[in-house]
């Protein structure tokens, strides 16, 4: 009789843990504040090349165009662009080899990035500005020899967001 009782107690003890398995939850918030940004993403040297300008030439001289790329927070767009005032004006006017030129930044072209997922971190929007320039005709330039150059300096496109 005692053996039967002991076996019964042991069986209850074994079954008891199974009957106690359950879940409970405790919710919490996940919060973040995102500061939108844009950053330049060009690599290598980009050059706006006016080629060869002949003094007093009768036609304005155009330049090659460069694409300046910025990587921005998705959905976020710069509000304005301007050129540096170190080697010219914010409007893009500058002087090189005694020749005046004006740079122009076109309207931005945006390629949307991919949203982050649980598997990937996603990518930003690619914002591109095409920059080109023009030199007015009939300029004398500054050059002590029959020809000079190439002469160059660095300009910077600044986007504000």
């Amino acid at each position, binding site marked *: 009789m005692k053996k039967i009782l002991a076996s019964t107690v042991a069986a209850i003890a074994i079954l008891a843990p199974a009957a106690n398995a359950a879940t409970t939850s405790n919710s919490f918030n996940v919060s973040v504040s995102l500061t939108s940004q844009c950053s330049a993403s060009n690599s290598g040297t*980009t050059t706006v090349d006016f080629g*060869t300008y002949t003094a007093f030439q009768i036609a304005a001289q155009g330049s090659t165009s460069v694409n300046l790329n910025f990587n921005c927070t998705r959905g976020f767009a710069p509000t304005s662009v301007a050129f540096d005032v170190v080697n010219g004006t914010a409007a893009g006017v500058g002087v090189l080899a*005694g020749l005046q030129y004006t740079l122009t930044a076109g309207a931005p072209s945006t390629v949307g990035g991919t949203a982050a997922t649980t598997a990937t971190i996603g990518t930003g929007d690619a914002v591109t500005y095409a920059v080109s320039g023009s030199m007015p005709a009939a300029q004398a330039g*500054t050059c002590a020899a*029959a020809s000079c*150059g190439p002469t160059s300096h660095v300009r910077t496109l600044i986007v504000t967001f």
Partner: protein
Amino acid sequence: MRRVAPGTVRARTKRGAAAIAIAVASAFLGAAQAGSASSSFRVIVNTDKSTGPVTPPNTGLCRRIDLPGAMGAIVTVVCSTGVVVEIGPGEASKPWGWIHGGAYRFLPPISSAGVNSASMDIDTGLGTVTSWRVVHLSDRDYLEMTVRW
């Protein structure tokens, strides 16, 4: 009288301070979001002054039309104002032959030997020489010019 649980006033005070702190922080965060990014590039040019004379543009106020032909050809200049200027052979009796639009041909009656080929008055006047050329003929040379004043 309404009973106030202990600590309630202190809790409200803390919440108020937190709200102010968040508002101030938000204001600063807004300012911090204004930023800029820059991308530099090189501007380059070659200058050249060894090229020969540059042909003036055939555009602008007037358009020049050189009609085919040798001596005696008529040069027509059409201006944007609608005025037509033609330069043609001068009239024999008028050394400063009047042509449309104020262009003149000066034909001094001098032979190649430097002798007056005829007795003729030569008009003179002040003006701006806009073009000129020396014409060599078999029996004489002469200066042809257009002036304007």
